[in-house]
């Protein structure tokens, strides 16, 4: 019976497809990692020098070095995945990856879906304007202006008067900029910077992003300059999916590794290698 055989084959292949796609987490995440001998880490490959594709098209950067070191100290291999940032911060990863080491800022809102480790470095949130700009000299000059920023970032929350920023790790807002007229939200901070580069006030008057992004853009010839001091510092940490069994144990383990890396100078070494200065010590 040809038809029966065809139906059987169809059902069998559907079954295999499901087996291939469904990776159920039975034990805790730490046990899963140990038994596989591999940790799957998500990274946001949009930002140099934290996480980017190098000349050979391989993942490289500060976050990548930190991830490799964490895996080494756990005694497992590392595999990277690169889902969209919005998917990483959405939580509910469904065991498709175990840990995020992607410069994620600790916030109370995110803490509802992910568990955070202790911070491994800090980044200053800073405003930037076009190099030719002469009207925005201090932070208060942004009143009535249009500011561009990346979707799902803390910068978006910072400028939204209806939302608490709620950054963790004991960090507080240093200066609140008020009365920004328009907020333009881009896929990532990079599109905001590129749009600013088109001309002073052409599409946006300024950007709010990491001070490192502005610096790196300047180095690559983008006409951009920093305005004022950092408005707050973001404590950046590894994160694990709260819905996954054993998530708290994993971040505890990662926190221990981070503390050891802080203590023995490994993180400082990576910081000097990628940024050229110290970013892993808490800002005073």
């Amino acid at each position, binding site marked *: 019976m040809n*038809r029966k055989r065809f139906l059987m084959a169809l059902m069998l292949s559907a079954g295999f*497809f499901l087996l*291939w*796609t*469904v*990776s*159920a987490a039975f034990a805790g995440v730490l046990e899963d990692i140990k038994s596989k001998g591999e940790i799957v880490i*998500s990274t946001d*490959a*949009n*930002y*140099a020098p934290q996480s*980017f*594709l190098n*000349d*050979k*098209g391989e993942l490289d950067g500060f976050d990548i070095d930190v991830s490799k070191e964490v895996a080494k100290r756990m005694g497992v291999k590392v595999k990277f*995945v*690169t*889902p*969209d940032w*919005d*998917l990483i911060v*959405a939580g*509910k*990863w*469904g*065991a*498709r990856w175990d840990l995020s080491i992607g410069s994620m800022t600790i916030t109370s809102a995110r803490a509802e879906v992910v568990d955070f480790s202790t911070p491994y470095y800090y980044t200053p949130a800073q405003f930037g304007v076009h190099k030719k700009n002469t009207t925005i000299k201090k932070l208060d000059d942004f009143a009535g202006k249009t500011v561009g920023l990346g979707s799902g970032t803390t910068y978006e929350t910072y400028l939204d008067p209806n939302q608490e920023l709620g950054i963790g790790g004991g960090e507080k807002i240093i200066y609140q900029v008020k009365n920004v007229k328009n907020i333009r939200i881009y896929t*990532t901070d*990079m*599109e905001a*910077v*590129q749009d600013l*580069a088109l001309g002073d006030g052409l599409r946006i008057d300024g950007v709010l992003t990491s001070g490192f992004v502005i610096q790196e*853009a300047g180095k*690559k*010839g*983008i006409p951009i300059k920093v305005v004022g001091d950092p408005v707050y510092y973001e404590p950046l940490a590894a994160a694990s999916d709260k819905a996954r069994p054993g998530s708290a144990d994993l971040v505890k383990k990662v926190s221990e590794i981070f503390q050891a890396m802080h203590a023995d100078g490994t993180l400082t070494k990576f910081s000097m290698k990628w940024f050229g200065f110290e970013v892993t010590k808490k800002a005073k």
Partner: protein
Amino acid sequence: MTPTGDAQAKAQDIGVTEIKLKHIEAARKAKQRFILWVALVWVVIFAALIILFYQFNLDFKFMLKYLPFIMKGVGTTVYVSILSIVSACILALFGALGRLSKNPIFYGVATFYISVIRGTPLIVQIFVIYLGLPQMGIVISAVPAGIIALGVNYGAYMTEIFRAGIQAIGRGQIEAAHSLGMTYAQLMKRVVLPQAMRLIIPPTGNEFIAMLKDSALVNFLGVWELFFRAVKIGRQNFKSMETLIIAGLFYWLVTIFFQYFQSRLESRLAKGTRKATGMGH
């Protein structure tokens, strides 16, 4: 007829043939001229485009450097699209059979599927499958999630193509098959589907070509296809225009490649039914 009359007729015949040949030759020349002009127009527009891109102040050295890296995404794009079109065909076949079914359950399921999928954006479907299903305990990784989403989406659109193909088979043939005692499955397999394929395959090729480009949407899931590679390299170097042009070029080339095969396939399938053109008769 006298022998001389016969020769006369022959001579006349040759004259007619000569006139015919002249006409054909003229038609061929005109066609050649037309093709030449079209090619010229293409070249001019292409050159204008290049000049336009020059005004963008593109960094050609940078483009050349990352060309091989972005090109590697072609394989993933084609692979995802092929698997998706195969799943779409399977879904479309069942969808079309349901759509033509007299059973209210099959008909209801098929029409509901078509309505929901055609009524929601592909990007929403991709996110629902990737983000939503894990909340029900069904966890699908990036590539299969993308393939399922594209397959389900295109399956709904292609259901109508399959339905039209099946309905085009004459009532008489189906009645004849019935009178031979064929079952529904036999009728479909032996009579309807082989003939319907001729009508189904060309528009399916068209859908595939559209899908090649829609597959760019799976970049959000972290699949390293053409668009993903272009966007990532562009962003971190602040040279998005450069990398997007490269990706666009590759999509175009791949499309041209598959379009060529589609037209070949189409003319093969049309054999036996097409109108004879050109010389003869």
